[in-house]
């Protein structure tokens, strides 16, 4: 809340990701009294959350609606599910994504399945906010990107933003969606800024976003790497290379149509995510592209991702673990080379 930049008439207001998350939660609570929150340390008595995203909310909306919980992730997600069955829209915070290993049963066997198993009699409109990302030197148990697990579970929606404005709109999108949503906040970019969203503007889930139009190659991904892709696209313009950037926004269910349309146009694709390469979401994107566009591709669809190892502590190794902007660039160039060789 403190990071809001001062605005003048001319410049658009710039806000951080953290501010965007906070505003979305605040506005959701204001818009709808059924929005409630729970998680470790989230109330103001505890400082408003370890990342301060929920700061001010319990003071404004009351400790009944914004509850600090014990360290009990199963109980947290379970309580969110139960409350949602009784008509609430709970937002549960799982402090870091590695801790989501604890309530997997609640999420996968219950939240994701109750609508189907009840034949539509009940549903679970919960949002699970969590945070993660390597690069902060926190090592093997505090950095994992596990979105591929949830993408593989029917009934779940997986969402992650690449700009503060998207952070705001998509978090609202999750909260007001009628299905269980996993909303992933990136740990590394939390203080980065972008233009502020329009208050109350919800981004509906399920649609990919052409973050930048281009004609030579499509970069497809979500979250932090989209920011690298945008920078790269800008850089390559100078060389006359036109890059299209497709931000999935909703990782799953995936908006295949938008992806395929883009790659059908450019004929080339590079898929990127921070999670380790193997069995990651990138594989699914690749599989769908080649299924739909076999014979029309000018190059193999390349993947850029982090290494298939545990996230190391030492910065030297952590940097080696992580996907890099340079990897995206190399992949894009390789893709373009393949194309011209044909």
């Amino acid at each position: 809340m403190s990071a809001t930049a001062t605005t003048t008439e001319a410049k658009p207001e710039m806000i951080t990701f953290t501010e965007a998350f906070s505003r979305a939660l605040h506005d959701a609570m204001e818009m709808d009294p059924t929005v409630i929150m729970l998680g470790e340390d989230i109330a103001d008595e505890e400082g408003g959350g370890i990342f301060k995203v929920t700061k001010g909310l319990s003071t404004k909306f009351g400790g009944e609606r914004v509850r600090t919980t014990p360290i009990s992730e199963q109980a947290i997600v379970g309580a969110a599910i139960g409350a949602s069955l009784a008509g609430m829209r709970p937002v549960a915070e799982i402090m870091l994504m590695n801790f989501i290993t604890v309530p997997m049963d609640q999420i996968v066997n219950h939240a994701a399945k109750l609508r189907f198993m009840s034949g539509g009699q009940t549903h679970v409109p919960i949002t699970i906010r969590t945070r993660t990302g390597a690069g902060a030197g926190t090592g093997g148990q505090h950095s994992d990107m596990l979105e591929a697990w949830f993408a593989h579970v029917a009934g779940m929606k997986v969402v992650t933003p690449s700009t503060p404005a998207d952070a705001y709109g998509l978090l609202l999108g999750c909260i007001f969606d009628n299905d269980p949503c996993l909303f992933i906040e990136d740990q590394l970019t939390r203080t980065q800024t972008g233009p502020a969203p329009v208050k109350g503007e919800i981004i509906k889930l399920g649609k990919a976003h052409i973050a930048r139009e281009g004609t030579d190659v499509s970069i497809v991904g979500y979250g932090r790497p989209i920011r690298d892709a945008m920078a790269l696209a800008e850089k390559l313009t100078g060389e006359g290379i036109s890059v299209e950037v497709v931000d999935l926004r909703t990782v799953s269910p995936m908006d295949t149509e938008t992806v395929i349309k883009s790659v059908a146009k450019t004929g080339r694709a590079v898929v990127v995510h921070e999670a380790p390469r193997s069995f990651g979401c990138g594989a699914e994107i690749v599989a769908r592209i080649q299924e739909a566009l076999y014979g029309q591709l000018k190059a193999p669809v390349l993947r850029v991702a982090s290494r298939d190892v545990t996230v190391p502590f030492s910065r030297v190794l952590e940097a080696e673990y992580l996907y890099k902007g340079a990897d995206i660039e190399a992949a894009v160039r390789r893709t373009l080379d393949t194309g011209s060789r044909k």
Partner: protein
Amino acid sequence: MSTPTFTPQVLLEVWRKARQINLIDEKFRGLLRSGRLAAVYYSPRGQEILAAAMGVHLQPTDYLVTTYRGIHDQLAKGIPLKPLFAEYYAKATGACKGKGGPMHITHPETGVMVTTGIVGSGLPIANGLAWASQLKKDGRVTLVTFGDGASNIGAFHEALNMAGLWKLPVIFLCQNNLYGESSKYEKCTSVDHIGERAASYKMPGVTVDGNDAEAMWRASADAVARARAGEGPTLIEAKTFRFMGHYFGDPGAYIPKEEYEAHLAKDPMPKTRAAVLASGIATEADLEKYDAEVNAKIEEALQFAADSPFPDVGEIDIDVYGAAA
């Protein structure tokens, strides 16, 4: 707590609920044996009275979270027979359109909110239902039932701790039937009485004879009154026995004969029936008439289930996601 009176009228009411469960269970086992029903089935035989003695205290608006072995709880809560049976029959007219099945019975109109097949998982969810009631001040009580084995899983601990802290209007009813699948209570549970575990959560905990209609009815009355009054949760351990093996088809060979017979002697159904007759509230003829009435309803519901169509194949893609809000 005020001490309500366990009148013969109440005893009869408990008996009737329990007997309905009992007759349906017998019917289902017969159908399964003859192959006319093919479904996973976890008999509640032995646990009818405790479910009924709790059930009579609940309103249709109260919430229930139960397990695969939950048909007695569901019936005690008042679920109608037709959608229940049709769900066992995997039919489109089933409570869940045949998509959930016996392990996932849901019927919100009668407060049957969740039936889970995962041991212990209902408890955290029950807290959430109770939390919603607390926020809305709607006076509802949430009942969650589970087995003795479930008291050893982490979700139990997390849920009771949270409920104790938040003073949620929830009742944790542990149906201690002395076995979890084929494992004996003592081999898996490091406490003499699960009711004692309540002390870890600053929560009242009681251990009652679940085969004793009056004791179970009193413990339930207290817990419901406490929850209803906003005084917080209760852990009830109801001691009972599981007569029919873990699942239908389990011969239960791991239960020593003498043990089994000792429990048979304490079977709550004949005992309670005798108590009803002794109380003078009903005669043999009255009870037989009731049985006949229930049996007629059972036959009617079975016919409905048998006659109903299977779900349309197109149902596969429905209820995976809802429409956006």
